[in-house]
């Protein structure tokens, strides 16, 4: 047991950081949150580095087979810790700008990261459930963090109600699957999957509905725009990048090890994937609020990713898994980049979130405008950006798995998405600036994160081979 603990350091390190930050705030109250920030970043960095451990030691499972330590876990844990690390940088500037206490926010982010680390390593349905709860509950609080603002609390409230509703679907599904198989371990659940009992089918459907809410797949996506709009900008970035990564990590492992390739399941998931792509892209067309736009765009990306999940269920040993992970890497980088740039402007009211506030940004803030344009072009999947290869590999996998309809839909909806992504770029570059030069935060750390993410988008767009090799 103790030996196992040493191996799962990436999971308990953020948890230890969470407790330390909270304790420190009570025992030794600090004037500012810089100590909390260093503690947070230290534990995240530790988790990031120690996540590489399993590769050196070979694939194993620990805690009676409940947690898997393999390459898959490693890729996801590295990605999640990396996202969290970059987000803490923008948190610092954001909360300082708003004159809000940031210590609790760091603690909550660490708690959520613990949950995410659990979700991607889970090989037991109950661990999956606990991980999802542990990542969700701190996020309800983080969404409502500006607790004197009507909109923020309303967003947190809605997120909580929908999240708890989704969790009850997930746990009821797990209960039914346990009833059908007599165990919650993936290996034993998979054995029962072959018998295809009614109990198992209903249970799986319920679980997938619950997870569908968490990844904001249509028709369970209606909470996303409201919550994205309400949450503090860095938290929205954290949700868009890290939560999606973790939830897809959990879903992908289920697809690899548990979910049977029955026609009913594949048909159901295909309908959800198609619907998610269509609803996400159609919803984004009409948005004038950039946070809501990115919310619908994240719904659309969840639809693309679901194609990879279906391809994984069809052939668990295929490269579809690494295509999905590659897509999540690129998606996380561009999302973090876009939200970090938006932190520079620090405005959360209706006007500040309106796309028109970005008019002519290329003239007043050329670097920020270029970075933002790069993010949006990458999300659209324009060649020579990271997003292009992400979509390209997913399409390849869909084609190999004979999913013609979904492949065509992916191409069509991507073309549709060009409209709203390019509209932002046009606003940035071809409209005259409105009013005076908008003020921005000056922060070297923030600029460094933006620069690193922007460079990563370009490098991955030109030379994706090393990362792909790493993910295989």
């Amino acid at each position, binding site marked *: 047991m103790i030996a196992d603990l040493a191996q799962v350091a990436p999971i308990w390190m953020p948890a230890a950081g969470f407790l330390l930050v909270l304790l420190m705030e009570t025992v030794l109250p600090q004037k500012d949150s810089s100590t909390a920030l260093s503690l947070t970043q230290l534990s995240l960095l530790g988790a990031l580095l120690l996540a590489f451990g399993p590769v050196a030691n070979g694939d194993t499972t620990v805690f009676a087979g409940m947690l898997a330590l393999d390459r898959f876990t490693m890729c996801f844990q590295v990605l999640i810790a990396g996202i969290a690390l970059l987000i803490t940088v923008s948190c610092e500037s954001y909360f300082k700008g708003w004159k809000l206490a940031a210590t609790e926010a760091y603690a909550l982010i660490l708690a959520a990261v613990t949950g995410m680390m659990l979700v991607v390593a889970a090989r037991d349905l109950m661990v999956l459930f606990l991980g999802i*709860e542990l990542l969700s509950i701190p996020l309800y609080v983080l969404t409502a963090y500006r607790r004197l603002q009507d*909109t923020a609390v309303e967003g947190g409230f809605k997120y909580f109600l929908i999240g708890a509703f989704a969790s009850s679907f997930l746990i009821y599904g797990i209960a039914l699957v346990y*009833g059908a198989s007599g165990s919650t371990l993936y290996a034993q659940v998979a054995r029962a999957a072959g018998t295809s009992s009614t109990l198992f089918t209903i249970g799986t459907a319920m679980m997938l509905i619950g997870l569908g809410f968490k990844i904001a797949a249509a028709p369970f996506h209606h909470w996303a*725009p409201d919550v994205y709009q309400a949450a503090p900008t860095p938290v929205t970035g954290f949700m868009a990048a890290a939560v999606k990564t973790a939830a897809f990590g959990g879903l992908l492992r289920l697809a690899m090890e548990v979910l049977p390739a029955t026609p009913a399941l594949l048909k159901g998931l295909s309908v959800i994937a198609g619907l998610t792509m269509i609803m996400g892209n159609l919803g984004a067309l009409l948005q004038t*609020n950039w946070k809501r736009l990115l919310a619908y765009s994240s719904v659309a990306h969840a639809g693309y990713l679901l194609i990879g999940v279906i391809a994984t269920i069809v052939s668990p040993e295929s490269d579809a898994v690494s295509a999905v992970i590659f897509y999540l890497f690129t998606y996380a980088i561009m999302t973090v980049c876009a939200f970090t740039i938006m932190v520079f402007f620090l405005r959360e009211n209706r006007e500040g979130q309106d796309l028109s506030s970005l008019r002519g940004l290329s003239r007043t803030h050329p670097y920020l405008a270029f970075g933002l344009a790069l993010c949006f072009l990458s999300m659209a999947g324009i060649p020579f950006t990271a997003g292009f290869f992400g979509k390209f590999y997913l399409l390849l996998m869909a084609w190999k798995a004979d999913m013609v309809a979904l492949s065509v839909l992916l191409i069509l909806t991507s073309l549709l998405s060009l409209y709203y992504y390019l509209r932002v770029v046009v606003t940035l570059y071809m409209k005259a600036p409105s009013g005076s030069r908008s003020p921005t935060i000056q922060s070297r750390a923030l600029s460094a994160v933006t620069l690193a993410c922007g460079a990563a988008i370009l490098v991955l767009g030109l030379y994706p081979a090393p990362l792909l090799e790493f993910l295989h």
Partner: protein
Amino acid sequence: MVELNHYLILSALLFGLGLIGFVVRRNSLIMFMSIELMLNAANLTFVACARHHVGAEGSVLALLVIAVAAAEVAVGLAILLALFRLKKTVNADEARELRA
């Protein structure tokens, strides 16, 4: 003789009741209670299946669910309280500032 199926039907009914309650009622506290009903449907299933499979695992899982539900409600009520302070109502339909 009460069999596994009877328990499963009862828990499905409980879950359905909670689901309908959540969708139909607009009072946030009642919506909370409906969610609890759905969680308890899962608990009943766990315990019934644990007896069917003759093992303690399912009962332990039910205890875990109870603990998680308590944590969730603690946070949920705190958020609801913050909302009530701002809006002076617990009606979910009054929470509609967030629009496109």
